[in-house]
């Protein structure tokens, strides 16, 4: 197994996921299996292939610099879990 439990935990932290200890082994092996599958791509010869970022042959999609109406504030805040005075309200950001 290439992916360690520590790797899995690191990915979980970066993704803001809480993984119960009892399920740690399961997720670690799933992540490992996934990466092993992707690893198959390495066997394809790509020496003469340019890196591709986009699947569609589209480029230079622009809009003019013209103001359009924004959302009503009530609509913007409608799904906010917490709000105050027209602001989105969030819990403590930095640890004490």
């Amino acid at each position, binding site marked *: 197994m290439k992916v360690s439990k520590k790797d899995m935990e690191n990915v979980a932290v*970066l993704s803001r996921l809480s993984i119960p200890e009892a399920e740690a082994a399961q997720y670690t092996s799933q992540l490992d299996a996934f990466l092993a599958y992707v690893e198959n791509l390495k066997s394809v010869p790509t020496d003469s292939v340019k890196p591709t970022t986009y699947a569609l042959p589209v*480029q230079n999609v622009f*809009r003019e610099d013209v103001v359009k109406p924004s959302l009503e504030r009530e609509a913007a805040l409608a799904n906010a879990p917490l709000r105050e005075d027209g602001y989105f309200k969030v819990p403590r950001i*930095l640890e004490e």
Partner: protein
Amino acid sequence: MNYEAVIGLEIHSELKTNTKIFCGCATSFGAEQNTHVCPVCLGLPGVLPVVNKRVVEFAIKAGLATNCTINNYSKFDRKNYYYPDLPKNFQTSQYDLPIAEHGYVDIEVDGKTKRIRLTRIHMEEDAGKLVHSGTTIKDSATSNVDYNRTGVPLLEIVSEPDMSSAAEARTYMEKVKSILEYIDVSNCRMEQGNLRADLNVSLRPVGTTELGTRTEMKNINSFKALEDAISYEIERQTEVLEDGGHIVQETRTWDPARGITLSMRSKEEAHDYRYMPEPDLPPIVTTPEQIERYRQELPELPDARQARLTGQYGLSAYDAAVITASRQLAEYFDAVIVDGADPKLAANWIMGDLAKNLNAEGKTIEDSPVEAKRLGAMILLISKGTISSKIAKKVFEEMWKSPDDPEKIVKDKGLVQITDTKAIEAIVDAVIAANPKPVADYQGGNKKAIGALVGQVMKQSKGKANPAMVNQLLAARLEQ
């Protein structure tokens, strides 16, 4: 051991577009919180961002004005991190193919020119604004978020660590600000956060080339804070190293009230941005012809303008640098001399009385009560001998208060210089008769004593006598 500082800057500059980078929300400053937001900049599911054409134009122009290579193929990427000022949990930025790379700007510090290399310039979106419930982010149990600024277009201008003092860093940032103002892509109002810098500082023993461990200070939004934070950090790191300690690589926050930097510990310890190409924004492909067209549209830049002022008008390098530091000031100068006013006198007046009055009233050159045309006319009156430089100060003060032309002020207030030989001689004679001591001193060989007599004549003429004539006539009489 002697250490030298190694300093690099990432300057963030908000662009002066009407709308945000990926949506049509307005960018104007000072709107009610969360009224310039839409599904795109709030990062709601299923939305499709579209690049604002003008942002690309501004970015390319900034690249050209700082001697960068413009990448014909450029793309956007997602920079993933969690912070509440970023509703999508990623910032749309540019990673491996920024719009511009490998540039430089030249700065002058203590009479020496130094080239500061630019690593890159890329386009990205600004984040929202946090209002903390406590006095600082650390003692706040909650914070409020205003997403109006989210998605406002930013240029990030990244320098190589080519600066070695606070003064160099300041001069570099001033230069970048001035270039952005000249090409008219940013308002650069630091108090509104239009222009701010992240800076990194490390030390290494003088004469060595290996870089030391660096610390980073984010969101520095004034030149004073920039200099103070660097000076403090150099001092702090020197002490740590001299005590045999080692520098911890970290982000520190500048506390202007206490004049120190403090370690910041965020919940996000591991900075792993996991950049990935932004699939919703197709690449930007620019042809050499387009780039050339943008290059043609660039105005005369600060360096060229400064060279013109020293070369063509004989201004000192210092005066030319001060005047060309801002485009508005440089244009004011050009407007003062357009009708024939002497350029050196113009520079003296602009940097002297005009600057003093503007500073005293907290005004900028754009809202100067004395327009360039009137100042130019006044300087012509000095050159023609209609008024003396001393009287000109009075005329200037009058112009500051009234919209009248200098000619009218001179006439109304009876300030015309006395150039009539007879009239000046009469005063000279009276002054010689009334001041035997300086007269005797002068005639006894102390030629400096004439100064007191000149002063008396000027005083009695209420400053209106032509000073050159006063000197000449006094000397003639005293030598008799």
